[in-house]
């Protein structure tokens, strides 16, 4: 089936680009990490489309790959981190990280495969298009929606205050 093949394509792209965000063998420059994070997010939007979450796929591309990553790139360019490239990763932290992450992956996969949560769930029909999600946002989730707008305002004020020149 075409959607199955697309799933494997997008899943492979997501994970491969994720690897390049964390450990790029060719370059230690944060800009390449940021660009691979953009690719990860876009292929994850493809996975969202396969899950029939169309609105969220659009929001993922617009907000994450657009706004958030532009902010990241802006800050990377602003800080000019050239001299950071030469430092080496310590062997001890690499080994400790790999061991702990391997243990967590083992726990995740073991519990996932032991319970196989999706075995009986077949033929889902829910479609997350804009009209349906918008209706839910303005009826059932109206209060959280308004609170989130206040949160955005607070974050904006905080950012302006933090980036003032004489910040103490």
């Amino acid at each position, binding site marked *: 089936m075409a959607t199955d093949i697309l799933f494997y394509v997008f899943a492979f792209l997501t994970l491969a680009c994720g690897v390049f965000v964390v450990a790029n063998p060719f370059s230690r420059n944060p800009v390449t990490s940021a660009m691979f994070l953009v690719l990860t997010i876009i292929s994850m939007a493809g996975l969202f489309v396969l899950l029939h979450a169309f609105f969220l796929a659009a929001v993922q591309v617009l907000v994450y790959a657009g706004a958030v990553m532009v902010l990241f790139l802006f800050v990377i360019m602003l800080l000019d981190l050239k001299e950071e490239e030469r430092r080496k990763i310590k062997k001890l932290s690499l080994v400790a990280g790999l061991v702990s*992450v391997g243990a967590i992956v083992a726990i995740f996969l073991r519990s996932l495969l032991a319970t196989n949560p999706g075995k009986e769930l077949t033929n889902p029909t829910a479609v997350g298009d804009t009209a349906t*999600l918008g209706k839910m946002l303005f009826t059932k989730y109206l209060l959280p929606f308004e609170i989130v707008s206040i949160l955005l305002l607070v974050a904006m004020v905080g950012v302006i205050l933090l980036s003032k020149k004489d*910040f103490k």
Partner: protein
Amino acid sequence: MRAVFAIPYPLSSILAGKRMNVGLEHYLIVSALLFALGLLGVITRRNLLVMYMSLELMLNSANLTLVSFSRFNDNLNGQVMVFFIITVAAAEVAVGLALIVALYRKRQSAHVEDLTSMKY
């Protein structure tokens, strides 16, 4: 011990050569691996900005889990939750990056090993 090492359901049917459709488990496995990648980045990388990007990776894997559960349970509440998570994550990134810039102005470094004044 036998039960622990028996090959579990999705892998067993793949190994047996049976056709199987992409289901909830596939998405959850991708999400778990992505979360692990982000965690590995936070633990091993020492650059504040790359650590922050790895954090975003972990956040995105949680979003993928929520969307796939929402899809396979025929319930759109999870997708509304993801919408809120994306909104809050955008605010969080703005505040965090402003903090990193303020820190860089004070210390001239975005490297966690240079930021040890609270260590002892």
